[in-house]
């Protein structure tokens, strides 16, 4: 029990301090708010051509969640590189805490930061395009968002772990950003893709998170999607935790921890 309590406290304190760190940079905060608006605007302009109010709501919700994905894809893969620059990566590795428990609160804080973009996109959609997103079940809607944020954070954890060994692997995150927008069904229904692509999409937690958010907004019952989103997220987290020690050992063997 003590061990569980200790881990819970470690995760909570680390998460809070990471949030504190991210929140102190006004530049990054503004960037997280403004950057997704360019893409959201493009999406709204395209979807507006259909003259279908449902399509605009679809795009509004999708563009809002897109920002959370973007934050994780671009920053989680660069997380360890940033720790290298700060000279803290070696200190984190040299601590007795399993590396997975060090990284999960950090990527969760990053995904939480993506909520800025979710709110700003919804406000932008309303102000400039008159898109109002009706939310039939607000509580379930919030639960679906939390599930999506958490599962995206765990993908971020897996992504950050896999790049321990290679210093320039942070570029991988940028490469995943746009395919993620399509594959997770943020803007385009997955049913439009070939079956094999749809299977890849179903293996990604944000696909289920997005589905749950839309269902909650429509007044549907998104619990199945929420559970799938969380299960897949945890599965990604477990894979990350399992490979983290192997990857770290490889980094110790190849002396890549201190390289900048």
């Amino acid at each position, binding site marked *: 029990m003590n061990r569980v309590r*200790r881990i819970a*406290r*470690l995760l909570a*304190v*680390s998460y809070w*301090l990471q949030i*504190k*760190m991210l929140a*102190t*940079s006004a530049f990054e905060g503004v960037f997280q708010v403004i950057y997704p608006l360019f893409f959201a605007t493009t999406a709204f302009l395209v979807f507006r051509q259909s003259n279908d109010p449902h399509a605009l709501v679809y795009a509004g919700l999708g563009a809002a969640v897109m920002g959370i994905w973007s934050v994780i894809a671009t920053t989680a893969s660069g997380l360890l590189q940033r720790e290298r620059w*700060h*000279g*803290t990566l*070696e*200190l*984190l*590795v*040299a*601590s*007795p*805490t399993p590396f997975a428990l*060090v990284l999960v609160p950090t990527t969760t804080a990053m995904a939480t930061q993506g909520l800025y973009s979710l709110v700003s996109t919804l406000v932008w959609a309303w102000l400039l395009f008159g898109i109002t997103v009706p939310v039939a079940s607000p509580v379930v809607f919030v639960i679906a968002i939390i599930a999506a944020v958490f599962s995206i954070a765990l993908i971020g954890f897996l992504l950050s772990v896999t790049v321990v060994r290679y210093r320039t692997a942070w570029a991988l995150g940028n490469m995943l950003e746009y395919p993620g927008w399509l594959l997770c069904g943020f803007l385009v229904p997955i049913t439009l893709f070939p079956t094999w692509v749809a299977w890849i999409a179903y293996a990604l937690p944000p696909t289920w998170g997005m589905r749950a958010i839309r269902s909650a907004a429509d007044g549907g019952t998104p619990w199945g999607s929420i559970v799938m989103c969380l299960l897949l997220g945890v599965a990604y987290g477990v894979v990350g935790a399992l490979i983290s020690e192997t990857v770290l*050992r490889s980094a*110790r*063997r*190849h*002396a890549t*921890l*201190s390289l900048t």
Partner: protein
Amino acid sequence: MPSEPVVEALDLHRSYRTRTGIVRRERKDVEAVRGVSFAIERGELFGLLGPNGAGKTTTIKMLITLLLPTRGTARVLGHDVVDAPRDVRRHIGYVFGGDRGLYERLSALDNLRYFSELYAVPPRDQKQRIGELLELVGLTGREKERVEGFSRGMRQRLHIARGLLHDPAVLFLDEPSIGIDPVGARELRATIAMLREQGKTILLTTHYMFEADELCDRIAVIADGGIVAEGTPEALKQRVRDGHVVEVETFGLPDGHVEVVRSLSGVRSVALEERGQAQVLLVQVEPGAEVTPGVLATLSDTKVGRVSAREPTLEDAYVELVSGS
């Protein structure tokens, strides 16, 4: 029965693979540490002294489990650094020099809170422990300020506090005084001496002779990846005490003269030191030998300033050991 050493390195080797070229990439193995062995007893302050690139940091990183040795073994408090890294990490503290290694956007207090969690310092003890350490390193009253506004000396002191949070039995200090001002360095040395008095076992790497001389119970001189001498500061000084040192100040010393002086009879070793506009030859002389006329003769085409003779210091012993390796 003799007690088991707290830190033990046996024939440690570590090589790095580097690559050159862009189109035709060539791999090259560089051996940074070649067969380093030493043992540190409980409560001892052991110095690892050597020039840049000698293998000090690589050795320390193998001992604190950040690098895997390519050959050899090392144990800390009986735990193997390869097979039981987590057991090693629980009992050691690691502090390195320079101003990196802290979260700039967090306050000193938050930095310490974060590492307290990582080192499983019980919550009920954290507040008191952090308070004591802030007092110890002289940062009481500044703990709520963000680290980005701290001077290098303050950062270094915060590093020390971070390394002591979990009250480790063994401390690894990797050039902790590098880049800090003389007053800060003196305070740091006083802190290290106090930690030794508290019974901590300490491995200190440095290239400052006076620091090693003042603090260390024993010193191992490391050069080119291997240990070239080991003993107490006194024993190391004794190696050169029998002779004396001639210092010759020159201006515009041409290439090749150091080698010529080194080849003179009675010369044990020669080092060249830049002091402002002058280049000073430090000539270590065998006992009873008189080399000054010979040295000056080799410098007939060079402008020579002050010439003096003095007793050897630990630094001279170090220079002889390092240049002779």
